[in-house]
């Protein structure tokens, strides 16, 4: 495999709200190679978007990084000034947000909003930027691009707007594209088209993708590597095969049980596992999944499990695995 593109180590992000400190990310570590497609799955509130935003220095008020490091493409993101970050955003790394309907500015034309990012990060002049924008619209499969350039967001459908967002994200041929649930707001046929488009473009431009989603079907089809998040932690991470055929964390197992058969063609949404998600204001001292875990032991409640390495690419944080390993070592000795 190629060079390391993203290396997030022990990342902690908190939101300092009036109600108290919301520990959105609690010791997240994710590594990703160039050219890979990494899937991040997990239920709502598990910290998928915050992880993505951290990578771009986009954590919204009142949140901030309280620990850990983020390395991206040779930059130490958390040491960079806002001005340095600006040179990277939209250029080396771009993001497609969760909400295509509201992510474009209603008072400017599509053309204006695409050209803006081209003019900002390249030394193209207005005409060249215009041509590039038309080219991008064609690339993302929008018909009559010249006409669309002059239209406003409210004149376009949701699918079109999401395509425009992709065009904006791709404008400067980023090394990394973060797609934060790029298709949840769209209907199924358009979903498929957009995902296909992204994979096609990945081949063409040779970029890496972080695909954030609720939909295990998407992950199974697109991603080489999968990080499963729960309660602000990556509880298990491995290749797609490892996660789907050899899940080791209790949450991952539950997740996979909640869908009938993986070989089904149609995409399925995650059916939430019984019990309520973690209260991030008062996170438990031990394993965040403990209150909902059928195999929960005493130690799970009191202490956070360390990662157990299951293969070169596969690791998970669960006391059961620690116990297994301990027993194995005990036998070996």
């Amino acid at each position: 495999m190629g060079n390391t593109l993203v290396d997030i180590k022990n990342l902690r992000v908190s939101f300092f709200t009036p109600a108290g400190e919301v520990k959105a990310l609690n010791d997240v570590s994710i590594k990703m190679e160039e050219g890979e497609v990494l899937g991040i799955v997990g239920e709502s509130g598990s910290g998928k978007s915050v992880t993505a935003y951290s990578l771009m220095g986009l954590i919204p008020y009142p949140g901030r990084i309280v620990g850990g490091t983020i390395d991206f493409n040779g930059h130490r993101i958390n040491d960079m000034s806002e001005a340095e970050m600006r040179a990277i955003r939209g250029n080396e790394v771009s993001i497609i947000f969760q909400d295509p309907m509201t992510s474009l500015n209603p008072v400017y034309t599509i053309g204006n909003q695409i050209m803006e990012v081209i003019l900002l990060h390249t030394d193209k002049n207005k005409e060249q930027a215009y041509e590039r924008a038309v080219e991008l619209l064609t690339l993302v499969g929008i018909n009559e691009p010249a006409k669309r350039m002059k239209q406003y967001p409210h004149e376009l459908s949701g699918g079109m707007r999401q395509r425009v967002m992709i065009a904006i994200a791709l404008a400067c041929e980023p090394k990394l594209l973060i797609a934060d649930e790029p298709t949840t707001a769209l209907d199924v046929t358009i979903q498929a088209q957009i995902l296909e488009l992204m994979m096609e473009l990945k081949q063409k431009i040779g970029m890496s993708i972080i695909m954030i989603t609720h939909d295990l079907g998407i992950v199974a089809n697109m991603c080489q590597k999968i990080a499963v998040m729960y309660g602000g932690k990556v509880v298990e991470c491995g290749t797609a095969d490892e996660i789907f055929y050899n899940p080791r964390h209790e949450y991952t197992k539950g997740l996979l049980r909640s869908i009938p058969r993986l070989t089904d063609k149609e995409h399925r949404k995650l059916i939430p596992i019984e019990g309520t998600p973690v209260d991030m204001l008062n996170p438990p001292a031990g394993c965040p999944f403990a209150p909902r875990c059928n195999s929960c032991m005493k130690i799970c409640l009191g202490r956070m499990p360390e990662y157990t390495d299951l293969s070169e690419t596969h690791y998970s944080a669960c006391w059961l695995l620690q116990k297994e390993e301990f027993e194995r070592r005990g036998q070996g000795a």
Partner: protein
Amino acid sequence: MAKYIIKRVLLAVVTLWLIATITFILMNMVPGGPFLAEKAPSEATLKALNEKYGLDKPLIVQYGNYMSRLLRGDMGPSIKQRGRTVNQIISNGFKVSARVGGISVLVAVLIGITLGSIAAMNRSKWIDNVIIVVSTCGIAVPSFVVSTVLMIVFSVKLKLLPTYGLSSPLHYIMPVMALSFYPTAYITRLMRSSMLEVLGQDYMRTARAKGLSQFKMLFKHALRNAILPVVTYLGPLLAYTLTGSFVVEKIFTIPGLGNDFISSITNRDYTLIMGTTIFLAALIVTMNLMVDIAYKLIDPRIKLK
């Protein structure tokens, strides 16, 4: 767009006609008349005066006469200010009031938008709190208090600024401050809350994710969206401020329209009451139309119907 404007203008004419008619009826329903306040003129004089101004005719005839003159743009002679027409009085007064008022609105808009934006961008920091407190006071304090305090500080104590008239740029300072005080505070608050809302919108996050500078984000993406409520407020604000404030004009001895408006009522100067009312109404209607057009220019989602 042109069709829309024509429609609105026609509607405006109807509105103005209604306002003129209602004012005419109300004015004549109130007992008394223009010549009764003075020390009682003789029967003969009264009759002569009423005849001169056509007040002896049946109301319906008076109304007809007034309207037909109004259609030609003639609002008749003033009943109480001898030898001056209502048109003259309004045009003289408006020139003065509009100049002071125009400057005041400009000041209020510039300062209000700036302060409101600064407050929103520094939410919950000390500067935001200072701006909130000051603008709340600005809304609570009436203009005669502001005028008096200004007068005491700058004219009486410091002897820096002249107290009456408008003969030099220096003369404008205090009246403009007094007039713009409330709208500045109001616009600051409007701007702060709408800016806060806009800054939290998804498209601002997109702008940031593009790598745009703070400057571009604010002036290109945020301001144009956040300014809409201020534009709405601007219509009535302009209409009222341009026609002059009675209080401020009285205190600083400015010969503006606000003065004429109030005195026309106390004097029962029928033609001047009609004139100033219709003028103010016309101004409000015009400003509202301009606001709607401005709205359309700022926000392409708005459909003018």
